[in-house]
């Protein structure tokens, strides 16, 4: 499973698929304050990205891949 939901954190690992976005959205609706850990994430299908953008999530750990981190920064307007 690419997304693990913890109490106040959502941890992404490897590649988050399109199906994951559905559960991500549900979880974030119930836990709007949840923080996102992308450190182990290598790619996320853009539906997930849209959910993160719409929920204005705060990222507590960026992906290790610098370019991916930049992309996500730009999407979440963290630059």
């Amino acid at each position, binding site marked *: 499973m690419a997304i693990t939901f913890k109490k106040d954190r959502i941890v992404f690992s490897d590649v988050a698929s399109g199906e994951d*976005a559905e559960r991500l*959205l549900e979880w974030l609706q119930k836990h709007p304050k949840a923080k996102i850990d992308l450190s182990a994430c290598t*790619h996320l299908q853009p539906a997930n990205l849209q959910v993160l953008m*719409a929920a*204005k999530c705060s990222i507590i750990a960026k992906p290790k891949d610098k370019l991916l981190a930049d*992309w996500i920064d730009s999407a979440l307007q963290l630059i």
Partner: protein
Amino acid sequence: MNPLLEQFISESRESLQGIGEKLMQLEKEPESSELMTELFRFVHTLKGNSGLFDLPELTRVLHAGEDLMDAVRNGEVAYSPLLADRLLDAMDFVGLLCDEIDTNGSTDAKHVNNSVRLADSLRQLIVVIVPTTEGASSAVVNELPIVPEQPDPANQLPLSDIPEEISMAAYRAAVTGKPLHWLAYSPVEECFFQGDDPFYQARQTPGILWGDITARTPWPKLAELDPYCCVLDFSILSTATLEELQEYYRYVPDQVRIIPVPGSFLILPQGEPNGGPVYEDFVADALKMLHANNIAGLTHATRSMLDVSNPNLWLSAALRWLLLVIELEPDNVFVCERILLSLRTMTPPVWHELAGGCDTRINGDVNSELPHNLAQEESEPVPAMLSPEVTALIAAQREILSLPDDIAWLAGRLKSVAASLSGCLHAIGANGIIQSLGAALDEALAQRASAPLLHWLDSHFKPSVDAAPFLPQSVQPATTTQIGQSVEEVKYGRRAEDSYSGPKSIKVDQVKIDRLMNLIGEMVVAKNALPYLAGRAENVFGVRDLSREIKSQYAVINRIAEEMQDTIMQVRMMPVSFVFQRFPRLVRDTSHKLGKEVNLILEGEETEADKNIIESLGDPLVHIVRNSLDHGVEMPDVRRALGKPATGTIFIRATQEADRVVIEIRDDGKGIDPEIIKRLALEKGIIDNERLERLTDQEAVNLVFAAGFSTASVISDLSGRGVGMDVVRTAIEKVNGTLQLESEKGRGTRIRLSLPLSMAVTNVMIVESNNQLFGVPIGSVVETVRIPRADIHTIKKNQATVLRGRIVPLKPLNSLLGQHVPPRANEEDELAVLIVSLGDESVGIMVDNFRETVEIILKPMTGVLAGLSAYAGSALLGDGSVLMVLDIKEIL
């Protein structure tokens, strides 16, 4: 139909024709900008015209076509066979709609889907913008007046979003000769459902330096969010070549825009603008060093300045850029200078405006220095409320006056502006200020400047912000002067050699020509009554002198009538190009479809023949050419294996021979194998074994024209449809044409059609049989003979005779027409026999007697008579009686 719509249809057809031709020519010379321009103009005209009517389906496609052609013309999209295909498709559709409008007066709404599809297919091709080598600079200089025709799209890009270190890397790459492209990738909303991952696609873009994701729409509340509707836009900066990017995004070309970015456009310092000392000293010193080419000094000064400045300042960013430019392009004084100058304003240089490399002058500056309230005049005021048209018109004049003055036609411009304003003032009843306008014009002319008029305008009409919406951003006076001169040079050169001559032709409705043709036909017949009359005058009334006078009058009328007839025939003459022009397209499309390579050569397109003949040629020729393409020319590899050039040739030539037009269609394909023909003919029962033995190869080959014969073992989509060459033969013979086929196995086939130049007048021989007169077209009569009854033999119930050593079968005309009356012999017991040719054979038709040959206007059988296949038609004779003209081939 209203005349305007009628005009539209007729002009549209011409344009469509033109488009087809130009595309064909472009295929041969895809680089020709002249052809491209003409092609654009055709599409442009069509589209412009269609806007006058409510024809959305038509306009949509034409609009897309125009945009595409505009992009091609401007060199943004390259011409390609695919483009030609799509444009041809679209134009076929337009042609179809035109036909529909022609018949119904409107188009059916059912075409919407096709219209949208075709428009999309055209627009898909306008994805890519090919970089101009020198950025915007070359465009500015080459374009006619001032503003580049196509604003460089790189102007509008949010390049300042790119972080400095990436911009610098990109600039470095550009300076070292790498391409630099901005990609705007907007995946469609439903792309996730199509299994696309646009983010992945974007991340993997070749040569990616930087990327950015934005949402197209503000995000809704989470509860309302549809995560599977993609609203993301991706922006990417890449050092990949255009081709690489096109290839990479080839599945979503319509969702990507690729824009070349000149490296210098990235020099956009960013940072805190505030604080710090006034840098003027530094700027002045640095500029001095720059102009003295003291690069070392400049570098040193810049570094020192940078050391004492907070790195987050705008200043520091600019200095870092300056250092980089000095490092990479020490010769680029212009860019360095701009960066230094920008320190005074703390705003980045507007590179695209500076691309011309010359000083700008913000226009209006000159005028704004003048006192503004020079003439608050006494006269009656301008009406307070001005209509939008008046406001727009005045705004346009203000705009014109704000243009730079250094053009050759400044005086003309000033006068025309004054004339326009004067008209406008008259129209709105503000006559009182017209006099002062005249004075302002005089002053402007004396000063050779727009300012006095502009000032007059400002004092009477307040400049409003939105009234002049399109003020130019910048103007280059130096460039303009040059343009003024060059326009003049070009103009006189062109006028000398290209003097205009008035229209020498007029368009006449086809119906009117047909009517004229019928009238002259009646005239010829009526004139033929005169010899009868002369005969009656002499024989019945016994007035010989009158008879002679009638005859001499007849000679005059006859001459005039013949001349008239000739002239009208000339009017009806059309060049064979009317038929030929469809072949380039046909050959192109068909050979593509078949995977063959075919070169079409057309000759003698200017050869003329009567309109009816030309029109009747169309279908048979198409059939013959399709046959050549389908069965004649071999596949390229086959040809190569046979030692022939891979590209086959189809050669069509028209020539005039005496009173006939001869059309020869030749191909260098595989030819026709007489053995196969013989076998097939035997199988199909067209010939019997006995005949097979005697058949020469040439005769065998000609069997393809026999009814029910088709050599294609499988009926192909192209030449097949179940009709064979017999249809061709029938169609050609219908207009009194003949055809010959020669073929050499493995070498090719040659078909020769021979047709009369005109079919308006037919020569017939009148024969008498069973007290009736019949006409026989002279073309089918070989000779007339009288044969003694004794020489007629009966072989197996069939009559025959021997004529010059050949057996000629004989048939009585009466029995051919279903009348059981034997032919009458003359006093010497000889029977009149008309020898007619039937293909290669001769047949004798026994009649009662021969009469004269006459020229007649053959009218086809109409109404219930049309079913009588024995007759080719009827004609009026000079004495008013009707002559039935036999169709010899049908009755035998």
